[in-house]
Every structure is written in structure tokens, then in C-alpha cells.
């Protein structure tokens, strides 16, 4: 979604201790800039800038564009704080790190560590059908370490999708955009109209805030794994519930990947939350399952290795 040009901060603009280099992306809720701090270290700065609700005056201050929009503007700011609060609690290599949070121009800013790399979405489009089994396992195991940290803090991400996963130059996946992670695990109180991305959102997300849990993020991880193989998002969950036309990963890629990996993906994509892996840890165990890394029908040698592996665990 493009933002009218006059709303974004201009290049070279001095924002607190940071100098704006350029606009990286604009969403409905915020705009992200590449900027340099005083030591010329690049950072990503996210500005709270709800589209269609605000104007920017001559001194760069953000203001509600109508009196009626003042309350929603302030309320949205609260949600922006939730993202800051969430991320500030987490210091993990697979979760984007917040470095600063400040108020200026009558709005608020979240400063994040800037990493060189591309989103998984970009890699999927560039490398369609070239992901190997071991790459898939490594990437998602590592990503799940980050998600586990999020869940440990009693938070849900609720918008996991390839566009929100950054893959750095050394192939480390980093979970981005906690704009939806405003729901704590033990809250039953709806705080905002839920946002979700069709194809990646779990069926329970279409029904509001009730029944959400780690299994909700796990559905999205499954959908992300699925789309890493297919190149396109899986059928949206609300449509699947009416008429499920999603080809199971097991049927689509049998022989190219191990049965165990494909069945794991299909289990994550179960419409019934209870049939999915119930925790990140359970899913990680499935992705780690020894022996399953081997190609199917591995024969005697594989059996031996599996046996040795079991002996080695003692």
C-alpha cells in the first residue's frame, strides 16, 4: 500500500540522533526508514503513521486529519507501544532487536537493528523449488527458536508469513513486524480489530480473539513452510473451512522431500487446532526427528544410523 509522498520524512531529515537515508517500506499502520545514527551505523526506524488518518504539517508534526480521527489515532499509538513493549523484552538472534524508542513530531518511533539481507518472501520468489530438505529444516528450526522466545514471553506473533521473516546474509532467519503481537497469551480481552494475512492466518483468527494460542502461530509457520515449497500462499483458511481444496504437502511433493517433513507441514496446517503440534517445542522436535533428515527408503544404512542415534542418546 503506497503512502502519499508528502507524508513520509524526506531524505536527509534529522530525526533526533538519526539521519533519514531513505524510505524502506510503507504499510497501513507505519512507515519504515533506513537511517544512520551519529556513528553512521545503519538502523531501521519505524514511524507510527496510520494511513488515511493523519497529515503532516510544515514542521513535520503528525496530526489527525479530522477531529473524529483523533481518538483512533491515539488508540493506534497504544498498539504501537505494544509492539515496542513486546520487542523490548526479547533479545534473541532470531527476533528483530529494538534499539530505541522515542517520541518526536507528535508521533512515536521504533528504532531497530538494521540487517543486510532479504525477506523470505523475496527468496521464495527468487529460488522457487530450489529449497532443499536440510535447508528447510535448518531455516525453520532456527526461526522457531525465535518464536519460542516470543511464546515464552506469553506473546503471540499472529502474523507470521514469508514477508515478515528476514533472512540475513549468513542465512539466519529473523522474525519481523510485531505489529500484531499485541495479544498476550493469557489475555482474553480483545484489544483491536485483528489483522491477518489471507493464506497464512489460522482459521481461528477469522473468528476473533477467542481460541488463539501457540497453535495459531504454528498454523502460520506451516503455511510459510508450504509456500516455501509451492511458491504461492496456501488456500485461505476461511475458504478451506467451506471447501478444502488445499493439496496436502504429502501429496504434492512426495518423493522430493521426506515423508516426515511433508506430514509435519500438513499437521501444522490442520484446520482443527487440536490436531496441530501444540507448542513450538513439539514442532521443533518433529523437525529435528533423527533419521527423518535422510531421504525416504534409506534402507539398512539408515536403520543402523537411527539405531546408533538412539543408543547415543543414552
Amino acid at each position, binding site marked *: 500500500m503506497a503512502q502519499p509522498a508528502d507524508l513520509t520524512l524526506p531524505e536527509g531529515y534529522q530525526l533526533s540522533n538519526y539521519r533519514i537515508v531513505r524510505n524502506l517500506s510503507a504499510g497501513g499502520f507505519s512507515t519504515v526508514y533506513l537511517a544512520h545514527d551519529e556513528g553512521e551505523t545503519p538502523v531501521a526506524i519505524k514511524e507510527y503513521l496510520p494511513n488515511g488518518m493523519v497529515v503532516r504539517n510544515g514542521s513535520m508534526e503528525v496530526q489527525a486529519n479530522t477531529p473524529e480521527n483523533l*481518538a483512533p489515532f*491515539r*488508540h493506534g*499509538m*497504544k498498539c504501537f*507501544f505494544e509492539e*515496542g*513493549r513486546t520487542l*523490548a*523484552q*526479547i*533479545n534473541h538472534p532470531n527476533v528483530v532487536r*529494538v*534499539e*530505541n*524508542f*522515542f*517520541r518526536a513530531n507528535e508521533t*512515536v518511533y521504533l528504532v531497530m537493528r538494521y540487517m543486510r539481507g532479504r525477506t523470505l518472501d523475496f527468496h521464495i520468489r527468487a529460488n522457487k523449488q530450489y529449497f532443499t530438505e536440510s535447508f528447510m529444516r535448518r531455516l525453520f528450526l532456527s526461526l522457531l527458536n525465535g518464536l519460542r522466545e516470543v511464546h515464552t*514471553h*506469553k*506473546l503471540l506473533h499472529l502474523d507470521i508469513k514469508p514477508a515478515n521473516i528476514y533472512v540475513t546474509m549468513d542465512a539466519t532467519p529473523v522474525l519481523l513486524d510485531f505489529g500484531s503481537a499485541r495479544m*498476550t*497469551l*493469557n*489475555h482474553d*480481552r480483545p484489544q483491536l480489530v485483528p489483522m491477518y494475512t489471507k493464506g497464512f492466518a489460522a482459521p481461528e483468527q477469522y473468528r476473533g480473539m477467542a481460541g488463539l494460542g501457540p497453535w495459531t502461530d504454528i498454523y502460520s509457520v506451516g503455511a510459510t513452510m508450504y509456500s516455501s515449497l509451492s511458491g504461492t500462499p496456501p488456500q485461505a483458511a476461511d475458504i478451506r473451512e467451506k471447501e478444502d481444496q488445499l493439496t496436502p504437502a504429502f501429496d504434492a511433493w512426495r518423493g522430493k522431500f521426506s515423508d516426515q517433513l511433508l506430514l509435519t507441514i500438513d499437521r501444522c496446517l490442520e484446520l482443527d487446532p487440536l490436531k496441530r503440534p501444540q507448542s513450538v517445542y513439539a514442532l521443533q522436535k518433529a523437525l529435528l526427528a533423527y533419521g527423518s533428515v535422510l531421504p525416504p527408503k534409506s534402507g539398512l544404512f539408515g536403520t543402523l544410523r537411527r539405531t546408533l542415534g538412539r543408543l547415543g542418546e543414552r
Partner: protein
Amino acid sequence: MAARYEIFQESLIGGRKSNQDRVGYACANDTLLMIVADGMGGHLNGEIAAEIAVRVLIERFNREARIVLTSPAEFLRGALEAAHLAIGEYTRRHKLAEYPRTTCVACVVKQNIAYWCHAGDSRLYLLRNGRLYKRTSDHSRVQRMIDAGLIREEQALTHPDRNKIYSCLGGDQLPAISMSDGTALKDGDILLLCSDGLWGMLTSAEFEAAIAQESLKLALPKLIRKSNDLAAGQGDNLSVIALQWPGSVEKLEYIDSAVTMPAHFLTRPAGVPENRHNADDISDEEIERAIVEIQLAIQKLSK
């Protein structure tokens, strides 16, 4: 003709792994609220209980004192009871295995009259002319023994049961809450609220001696340091909030001095509910507080 008074606050972790003490204050119109809550370390989630207590008191104060606090004593009792219930509600909602618990001492100063109340062994001291004028009496086993003439005050400081208290917020029994009468403040009076990390190392005489000689601004940091040094790294969390009463006050304002924590320092453990009234509005004060909170969380993890 606005007069000023100064609030001092400090909270040290001592030799513990976490700081389960919470300190807070708020003011509105001609009224001031100060609180110290000491989350009980022997119980799970002590800091959550302390956090809820301070938050509930400040929220209720902001709601009621904005209009006019007609009866500070009633307000205090009601607010402590509400905090106790809020801890219970939190325990049930989050299915905690055990009630988090906290002591609490709170004081309201309206015009020049001070009212206070407490549950547990966090204390309020009122010092006048360099002497101890009033102090709360702990809800503790050793205080009962002192009252019964079984032990002397100095013996209580090292008594094996010195940490056993019979009233606190949180838990399945209603807390015993002791209320003071309204006390008119005189020029130079010092009101000091603290957790046992501060008073637990010192007798009343030592306490008096430390405060008596100088202005609060100079004396308090020394007192804190002395307590902390005596504990030699083994000490409890140590928290204090204090003010020295000025002369004629028509309207209260405040300035912070000698603080190591910003005003409204309140960490929020994940899952502690935010205030529920006016869910859609956010005041400038809330914005500032949220920013401070987030910055502190960032700094804490960046070290």
C-alpha cells in the same frame, strides 16, 4: 503562589537476583500519594503482587483525587483492599499455583494533613525536629514479641523470625490494614516510607541519628548507603520514598531530586493488565510513561 516540595525515591536490588520492591507516587490538586510495596520473595511472583498494588493505588488515586479526595483515610483502606482483590483476580485469571503477595505502605497528604495505612512490615516514619515522632507498627511476629516485652527492638533485627509477617496483600485471607489518624504536618517534617531492606539493618536510634543532622537531601543517600553497606551484598531489596514538608503550601507541585529512577518508574511484567478504564484514550502522561518503560526494558537487555 505555588510552593514546592521535594520527593526523594530510591530502590536498590541489594544482594538479590531481582528487585521485587515497587515504589510509586502521584499527585493531583492539593493531594499527594506515596507508596512502597515489597513483593514477598518467599512466594512466587512477588514482584507481580507489588506491581499490581502500586498500579491499583495510583489508578484509583488518579480517578478519585482528580475530583477531590473527601476522605483520604477511607480512600486508602479502599485502595489497599482493591489491590488485594486485584491480586486475587490476577491469580485466578492466570491460574497461578500460588497467590503472589506483597506488603504495602501508603500515605496521602492532603493540604497539610497526612494519613497513612499499611499491611505487613514496610514502614512509614514521621520525623520531627530530628526525632522520631511516629512510625507504623509492623504486622510481624517479632513486633508482637516486642509489644509483649519478650524481646528488645535490637534483638528483633537478628531474630530468626524477623521476616515472618501476618498481614499482606494477596493470599486467601483478608489483610489486616492499620490506619493512622490524620496528622498535621509542621515545617521541616520528614515523611519516609520504606521496605525492610532499609530499616532492617538499623535500630530506631541509628535511623534517627542518620536523618537528624542534615537536610533530607543530604541525609537520605547516606542512610541508604549505610544500610546497603551493612548488608554487605547480602541484603534485601531496599526501597524508599520520602519528602520533607515545606512551609505554607497553597498548591502542590513537585520536583524530583536525587532520584535514580525516573518518576512513574513501574516495570510491567508480561501479562499484567494495563489500566482498564478509558481503554481508547491515552494521555500524554501515559505516552511518556510507556516510552520510559520501553526504553528501560531495552537498556536492561542491551547490557
